[in-house]
């Protein structure tokens, strides 16, 4: 992965010719049992986690398609959430797979005709369980990908030690979403991965293995947390409160 991208905002704007497609992953990996709901449907400061994630993309220019990947058993729930809390945009629902990789493949195949006809030239993929990514990070990632091929947010990780207490050498980085890429090579990479039975841990791993795209890091955001532990919900609530309940 390349280090932070160069290029002015004008360069990045100029680099974008076609449209942007958003793929929001909300399929989770568990089956729904009784009263349990997918964590992306949990309330967070008066809205659903998913709604905050969608709100992060409100300033994306040239957004021509929004794809939400969900499991079948969440379809009724997601339609209700979009009806009550959506911003009015058209959202295409695509069935999730058994893995994140498979869900991404389904989403890419649903976009394939528009990628082939040139309507979409950048695809940005985001985990719906990261509700605080914010419009600024989305714009940065998409503009960088449009200019350079691929981009993802990275964050320096410090203070990591081995189990014996010795420090880990070198600089460790954590990778977040949203991750954005030129659409056509991304689609081809996923089709190639499907033919070879490859299952990647995230979008970038598939891109790096099956395409020539260079993936560039942009500065991640420590507040772009993924809802994993219960404490993350408390933290997300606090961060939203501090920002006046507005994503930045």
């Amino acid at each position, binding site marked *: 992965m390349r280090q932070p991208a160069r290029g002015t905002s004008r360069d990045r704007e100029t680099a974008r010719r076609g449209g942007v497609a958003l793929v929001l992953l909300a399929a989770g990996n568990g089956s729904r049992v009784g009263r349990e709901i*997918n964590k992306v449907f*949990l309330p967070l400061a*008066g809205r659903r986690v998913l709604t905050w994630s969608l709100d992060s993309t409100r300033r994306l220019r040239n957004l021509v398609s929004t794809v939400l990947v969900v499991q079948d058993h969440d379809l009724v729930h997601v339609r209700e959430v979009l009806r009550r809390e959506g911003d009015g945009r058209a959202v295409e629902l695509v069935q999730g797979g058994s893995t994140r990789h498979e869900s991404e493949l389904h989403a890419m195949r649903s976009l394939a005709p528009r990628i082939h006809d040139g309507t979409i030239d950048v695809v940005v993929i985001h985990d719906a369980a990261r509700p605080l990514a914010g419009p600024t990070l989305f714009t940065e990632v998409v503009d960088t990908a449009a200019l350079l091929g691929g981009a993802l947010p990275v964050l320096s990780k410090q203070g990591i030690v081995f189990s014996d207490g010795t420090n880990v050498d070198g600089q460790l980085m954590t990778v977040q979403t949203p991750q954005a890429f030129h659409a056509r090579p991304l689609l081809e990479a996923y089709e190639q991965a499907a033919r070879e039975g490859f299952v990647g841990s995230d979008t970038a791993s598939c891109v790096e293995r099956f395409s020539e795209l260079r993936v560039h890091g942009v500065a991640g955001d420590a507040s772009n947390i993924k809802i994993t*532990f219960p404490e993350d919900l408390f933290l997300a*609530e606090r961060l939203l409160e501090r920002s006046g309940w507005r994503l930045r």
Partner: protein
Amino acid sequence: MNTEHAHLTCSACGQVAEHELRYAGRLLHSTRCAACGHVVRHEQRDLYSAYLRDLEQRLVTKPRRLARRAAQEPRSFVTGLPRAVLRQPVKLAGELWTLLRR
């Protein structure tokens, strides 16, 4: 009080397990792991002040939210308005009860 259930990773037992999440108004009040019983909650003092700030914000933004809903779904907005208005005192009392009974 609103209660939801979802699979989350417990910071105490490390299992991805069902958690019960209890809400006071828009704020998360507490969570409880069904596997080990571990409870995470706001400090009481924090919760009071957070609740008051949240209540203020809800009141300030209510007209805008109502207007948006009226524009989006005028028919269901009009038919549902009387019930929604009548429900507010009960809803508020329920939230206060949740805060005070800990």
